């Protein structure tokens, strides 16, 4: 740890201030720059023929009629592209035993999920491409599909990759202490439940989109890409299309929602890039909404059989569960689809001091769309299982759900420590956040009110969750497994001739406000006003190398790199100023765009200094060669992740006649370390909670037994809308992480990770007096009525 420790207290620090986001002006004028807004000379459009069945053998493909459509420029089958694209395999070397088959951008010989791209048509317009695609005839011989993940491992299940012998992709067991002995104790109460979590998906409002241009004169590929990890995609395009990495440029300008959907390798996007290279002209592919539902990664499909044992005093004696999850026919490249199950093993029960723990996960192949990382990877399952079992156990032993948490949560002064699940934890505040939550929501008054209302036939419920969230991943996550995913990020800051500064960072902006917080950090640490900072992100050609934005790492990693770079630039500028002003650099400061004495007396403007260096170097000593640009990189060391924690609560009202649930209130108290901009953080948390509400009550990718996606439209797949959503009360506890000077952890995923658990607990609180419980998400009215035994 290095750098100044007083930057947060300086009068010109903007860290912690709710400043406005400069980017919003553009977006509110309709001047955003999304990928589909791009029109390039000679640009053509890609459309895809997709598998109509979940599993089948491609017998033949007839392209004659499609080729005859005026405006069709090229048609490619899987075999055509196989000569031009190196196959990809989604495994990481540190996840022992994980296996996946080589994948190609278009199916070759066999189709393995409904929606898998089979043929690409490139035409003068998207409409013509679709016209022609409709005339392609793909003769597919049906093969029996393995769609049900619980049955996919049975001996008579169809095997999706015959070479593998069965459909098991990966299995891992974590064990600590002696859970069997703890469950067998005669002084414990055991609660056992089966939880089911439906498949859902990100539904980014801007669908996946890319415009890829290839210049044969220099062998360069430029991809305008709606994505979160430009440098990762640079590597992937280069490796799999056979290009020098330095010849590939990925530009991610405005990105219309991502949530983890846009950090993966999709066949239609690789095919688009291959077509651009083969045709030597720009090719655009923008997924339509049906394509998004069928092929954007899905998440959360888990069945968990869980058990908890608690003593009469409410101490957790043991926690154990078995998780089974279906990931589709391949492990997604390059992050792998086993990560979600792995996180569930790591995170379940991790807020609690428990000694006896066993968790097993089986990750299975199935003939449905691929599953992979989506916002709050694994967290909703981990939190719902642990806190669902815990609240049920509390009721069984007659203890309040807050009290049982207080008896089990790791003490705030117990850090650093290692959880039973093997996670290194530090700087957490479970008790402080829970206390603040109880105070904010007026817990006791709510309980009394609910009891009184229940007597009048009004069924309300309260549910809580205490959670941890994975943020700021270190290289010990993907890097160790051989994936081209940077966990370090860089920031370059230069002094402009006009006295402004320009920040160029490898973290990316998808609406979180990344560019704003980088500007806040740089402005305050360096010493200029916010409006004198320009920020560039999302361009592999002009930004330092880094990982982009995922796993809530933009502020904690990109922000720290920016802080360090701003500090370094300031030292450089003061060195020059010392010579010009014949003063000691340490006697000078930079405040509001001016070099000042320590007492604030202005000596010269930054513009004067920069113009002297850039234009009038003759005024400087000949042995002085100033650098007014500084780059710093930062990565988390010592810890695999920097965890945050939160306590959340939901209040719902249940109509037992209809099964409808109204969310009356939601409270979230998060400790994301140092809050850089509360206005942005609060709405990040709220947006996260809303996605969590979606998972809890609305969102589900419904498949038929034979693998047809039955609700793949926005009219049929429900997401939270304004009318049904509550106002959400946010409060903060700030425990800065000691891993950085900035002290910022991530804040993007806690709501999505925690809300479903709180909501399920709240519904069960309301159902309990009616003799019913539900452990399946989404908690649809029908499922609630089933739980009540009325349908």
């Amino acid at each position, binding site marked *: 740890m290095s750098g100044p420790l007083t930057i947060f207290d300086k009068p010109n620090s903007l860290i912690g201030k709710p400043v*406005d*986001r400069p*980017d*919003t*002006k*553009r*977006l*509110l*004028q*309709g*001047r*955003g720059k*999304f990928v*589909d*807004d791009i*029109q390039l000379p000679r640009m053509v459009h890609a459309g895809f023929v997709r598998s109509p069945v979940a599993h089948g053998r491609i017998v033949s493909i007839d392209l004659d009629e499609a080729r005859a459509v*005026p405006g069709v420029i090229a048609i490619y089958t899987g075999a055509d592209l196989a000569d031009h694209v190196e196959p990809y395999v989604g495994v990481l070397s540190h996840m022992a035993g994980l296996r996946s088959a080589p994948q190609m951008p278009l199916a070759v010989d066999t189709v393995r999920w409904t929606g898998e791209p089979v043929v690409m048509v490139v035409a003068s317009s998207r*409409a013509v491409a679709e*016209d022609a695609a409709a005339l392609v005839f793909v003769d597919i011989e049906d093969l029996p599909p393995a769609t049900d993940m619980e049955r996919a491992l049975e001996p008579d299940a169809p095997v999706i990759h015959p070479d593998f012998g069965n459909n098991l992709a990966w299995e891992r067991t974590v064990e600590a202490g002696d859970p069997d002995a703890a469950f067998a104790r005669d002084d414990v109460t055991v609660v056992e439940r089966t939880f089911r979590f439906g498949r859902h998906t*990100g*539904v*980014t*409002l*801007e*669908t996946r989109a890319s415009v890829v241009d290839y210049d044969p004169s220099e062998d360069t590929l430029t991809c305008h890409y709606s994505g979160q990890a430009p440098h990762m995609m640079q590597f992937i395009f280069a490796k799999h299309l056979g290009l020098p990495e330095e010849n590939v440029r990925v530009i991610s300008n*405005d*990105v*219309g*929602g*991502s*949530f983890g959907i846009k950090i993966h390798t999709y066949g239609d996007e690789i095919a688009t890039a291959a077509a651009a290279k083969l045709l030597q002209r720009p090719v655009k592919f923008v997924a*339509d*909404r049906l394509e998004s539902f069928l092929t954007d990664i899905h998440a959360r499909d888990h069945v968990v059989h869980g058990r908890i044992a608690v003593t009469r005093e409410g101490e957790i004696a043991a926690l154990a569960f078995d998780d089974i999850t279906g990931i589709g026919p391949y492990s997604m490249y390059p992050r792998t689809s086993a990560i979600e199950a792995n996180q569930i093993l790591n995170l379940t029960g991790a807020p609690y001091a428990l000694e006896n723990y066993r968790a097993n996960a089986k990750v299975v192949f199935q003939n449905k769309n691929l599953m992979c990382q989506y916002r709050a990877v694994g967290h909703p399952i981990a939190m719902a299982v642990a806190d669902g079992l815990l609240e049920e156990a509390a009721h069984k032993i007659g203890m309040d759900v807050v009290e049982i948490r207080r008896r089990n949560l790791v003490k705030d002064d117990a850090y650093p420590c290692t959880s039973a699940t093997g996670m290194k934890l530090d700087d957490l505040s479970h008790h402080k956040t829970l206390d603040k939550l109880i105070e904010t929501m007026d817990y006791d008054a709510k309980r009394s009110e609910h009891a009184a209302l229940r007597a009048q036939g009004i069924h309300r419920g309260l549910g809580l969750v205490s959670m941890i969230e994975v943020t700021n991943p270190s290289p010990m996550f993907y890097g160790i497994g051989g994936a081209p995913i940077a966990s370090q990020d860089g920031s370059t800051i230069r002094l402009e001739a006009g006295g402004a500064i320009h920040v160029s960072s490898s973290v990316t902006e*998808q*609406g*979180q*406000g990344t560019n704003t917080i980088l500007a806040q950090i740089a402005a305050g640490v360096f010493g200029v006003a916010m409006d004198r900072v320009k920020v560039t992100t999302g361009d592999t050609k002009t930004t330092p190398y880094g990982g982009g934005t995922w796993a809530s790492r933009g502020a904690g990693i990109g922000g720290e790199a920016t802080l360090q770079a701003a500090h370094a630039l300031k030292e450089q500028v003061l060195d020059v100023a010392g010579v010009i002003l014949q003063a000691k650099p340490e006697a000078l400061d930079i405040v509001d765009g001016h070099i000042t004495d320590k007492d604030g007396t202005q000596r010269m403007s930054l513009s004067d200094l920069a113009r002297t260096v850039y234009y009038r170097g003759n005024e400087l000593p000949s042995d002085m060669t100033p650098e007014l640009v500084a780059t710093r990189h930062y990565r988390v060391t010592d810890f695999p992740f920097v965890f945050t924690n939160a306590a959340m609560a939901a209040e719902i009202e249940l109509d037992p006649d209809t099964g409808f649930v109204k969310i009356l209130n939601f409270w979230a108290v998060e400790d994301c370390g140092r809050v850089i901009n509360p*206005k*942005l953080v609060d*709405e*990040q*948390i*709220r*947006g996260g*909670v*809303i*996605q969590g509400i979606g998972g809890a009550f609305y969102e589900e990718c419904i498949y038929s037994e034979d693998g047809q996606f039955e609700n793949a*439209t*926005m*009219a049929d797949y429900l*997401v*939270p*809308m*304004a*009318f*049904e*959503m509550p*106002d*959400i009360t946010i409060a903060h506890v700030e425990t800065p992480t000691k891993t950085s000077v900035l002290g910022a952890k991530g804040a993007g995923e806690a709501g999505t990770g925690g809300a479903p658990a709180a909501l399920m607990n709240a519904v069960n609180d309301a159902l309990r007096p009616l003799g019913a419980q539900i452990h399946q998400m989404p908690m649809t009215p029908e499922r609630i009525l089933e739980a009540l035994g009325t349908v």
Partner: protein
Amino acid sequence: MTDTQTISVTVNGETASAAVPVRQNLVDFLRNTLGLTGSHVGCEHGVCGACTLEVDGAMVRGCLMLAVQADGATVTTIEGYGDRASALRAAFIDRNALQCGYCTPGMLASALEYVEGGGGADRAAIREHLSGNYCRCTGYQSIVDAVCDVIEGEGS
């Protein structure tokens, strides 16, 4: 299918004439032919509201209306709201009522319709009015706050 028809529309105060495919929807015409890319396409079946824009004084879904149906009409997109939306824009910035900004042009159109229609600072009514517009990033709360701010500001 290449049938085309020539249409004439007034868009953001300027008259445009073009031969459009009869099957082309209005938002594709505005985006691809006129280069007005502020209106976005989210679902192409009238559910998400990202393409909401104004035709002859009514807010419509640009993906559910054919360009030929706009022949002779006056169309206003986010690029053409001008001062009408300045209070809402300021409130959206102040409240951070947008994140990725993709839904924002449609959301702003629906909010403008509510405010200009004389809607009150009633959170439930605002939420109901905006319930045809998906926002996947915010919690909607900041959008409701922004609309309330404008209404209460105008009332004072």
